């Protein structure tokens, strides 16, 4: 038997009600009939969209934080949502799928040493038993992101930079050795010069640990650099997907082209700026 796909989403839809009190109001589809597959072999698949496109709702459904209105998500062939008797049990779900969120300062409490979270993750997900074994697992995960137990132990969130703390949330996600990491805007809070170091950690984890990523972002440049596949999301729908070169270098959709044209690139100035500036020369 061939290995099942890591992820299969079919006709995934999530409606929200908008305005109108208890019974009235219209419903609108935050995610509208999305079908999406992540193959068995490790890969990074990006979902790129602007705010309001539904990409975070999609991520939250993947993480079982939001229930779909219709459609289905299967993780390694087994349903993620539905009756308790049918769907994957909580423990194996949390071991297989781990999240990374946008703001690491919100992901950890300010009043507990950060390392406590990592140890608790290892214990709660039954990755290891006994203090020694737990510490060994935590250290292993931290070393994958270029840190170590010794460097993190005893420190609180304010003693880390944003980049370091985000690397620690990556390490936390790695503790149960998941098959899939869902990263929702993981680098948009991180300074530009450090973004690439985190993105490169994702690349290495994919290659060395065989973990797949759903990378949710509005940043086309990191999506282009990191992904094996890119899907463009607009108004709840995936309007275009393929390899980064196919989708971003040669977009089929006008919307994708508009996005690409609006990226402030270096060494490629918008013609509008040149025109505005040519009209008057600075003193």
């Amino acid at each position, binding site marked *: 038997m061939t290995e099942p796909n890591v992820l299969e989403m079919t006709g995934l839809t999530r409606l929200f009600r908008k305005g109108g009190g208890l019974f009235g109001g219209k419903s609108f589809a935050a995610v509208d009939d999305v079908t999406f597959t992540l193959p068995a072999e490790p890969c990074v698949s990006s979902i790129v969209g602007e705010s309001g496109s539904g990409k975070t709702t999609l991520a939250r459904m993947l993480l079982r934080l939001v229930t779909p209105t219709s459609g289905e998500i299967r993780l390694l062939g087994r349903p993620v949502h539905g009756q308790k008797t049918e769907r994957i049990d909580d423990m194996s779900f949390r071991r297989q799928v781990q999240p990374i969120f946008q703001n690491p300062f919100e992901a950890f409490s300010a009043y507990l040493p950060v390392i406590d979270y990592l140890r608790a993750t290892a214990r709660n997900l039954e990755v290891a038993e006994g203090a020694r074994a737990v510490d060994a697992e935590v250290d292993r995960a931290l070393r994958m992101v270029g840190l170590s137990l010794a460097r993190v132990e005893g420190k609180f969130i304010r003693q880390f930079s944003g980049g370091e703390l985000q690397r620690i949330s990556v390490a936390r996600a790695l503790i149960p050795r998941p098959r899939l990491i869902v990263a929702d805007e993981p680098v948009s809070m991180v300074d530009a010069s450090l973004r690439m170091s985190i993105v490169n950690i994702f690349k290495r984890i994919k290659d060395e640990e065989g973990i797949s990523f759903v990378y949710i972002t509005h940043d086309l440049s990191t999506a282009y650099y990191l992904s094996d596949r890119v899907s463009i999301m607009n108004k709840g729908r995936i309007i275009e997907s393929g390899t980064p070169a196919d989708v971003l270098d040669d977009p089929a959709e006008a919307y994708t082209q*508009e996005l690409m044209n609006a990226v*402030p690139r270096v060494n490629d100035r918008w013609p509008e700026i040149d025109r505005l500036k040519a009209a008057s020369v600075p003193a």
Partner: protein
Amino acid sequence: MIEVDNVTLGYGSRNFITAVDGASMTIGRNEIVGVAGESGSGKSTLMRAIYGDFSTGLRLRSGRITATFPDRAPIDCSEMRKTWWQDISYVPQGSMSVLNPLMKVHKQLIDGLPKHKRKGDRRAIRRDLETFLAGLDLDPSVLDAYPHQLSGGMRQRVLVAIASYVGPHLILADEPTTALDVVVQKRILLMLVEIQRRLGNTLVLVSHDLGVHYQIADRLIIMFKGEVVETGPTDEIFANPKHEYTQRLIGSLPRLGTRKSTVTALRRATP
């Protein structure tokens, strides 16, 4: 127009924490100056000092900041407050936190105008505002909205419009597009350039996004750990960055269309 001379800035009195350490720079007339650096580099602190906003414990420990606006004697930054919304205005990052959520936009806009601009018939001022907004492609109906009824991008455009309505000699914009999507960001950046070129004034734009600076800045100021490490014309800095930090910053950019890490390119460039 602005002369920053060996300025050290920080927070607190007994335990003084230095945010800007001996920075010097000049800001001239009729130019777009980009201030680049990462969080903690002191760029926002320096902007606040230039704006003369010494609330919440910001202190000027040494050095001088002097402003010379046209038709006005040179003033020190401690007196800058007097020129707010006349000679100098400020566009902050979080539009929701500066607009009053309980007031319609037009009311807070007119209330915020300096006295001499507020004089006269409110309806006449409003008509004038409407014309001004229309000139910037903004629908005058935004004036009758509460801030939460506008999208983040629209709120930010309204703020830019407010800041420029008084025709200031200097507009300071601190990360004005950071939380916005690229399409909206582009619109606001074009709006800023258009206003600057139309008024012939000076725009200082703080951003950590080098792409934004490449697009609109005439001149760049690079800050690193509280110091100004490099200044120069934008194209020159991008073509030939001198300071090691600037090189790293430019080298770490992922490029759309050239699918390779520029880290290797950097390594090749340095013998």
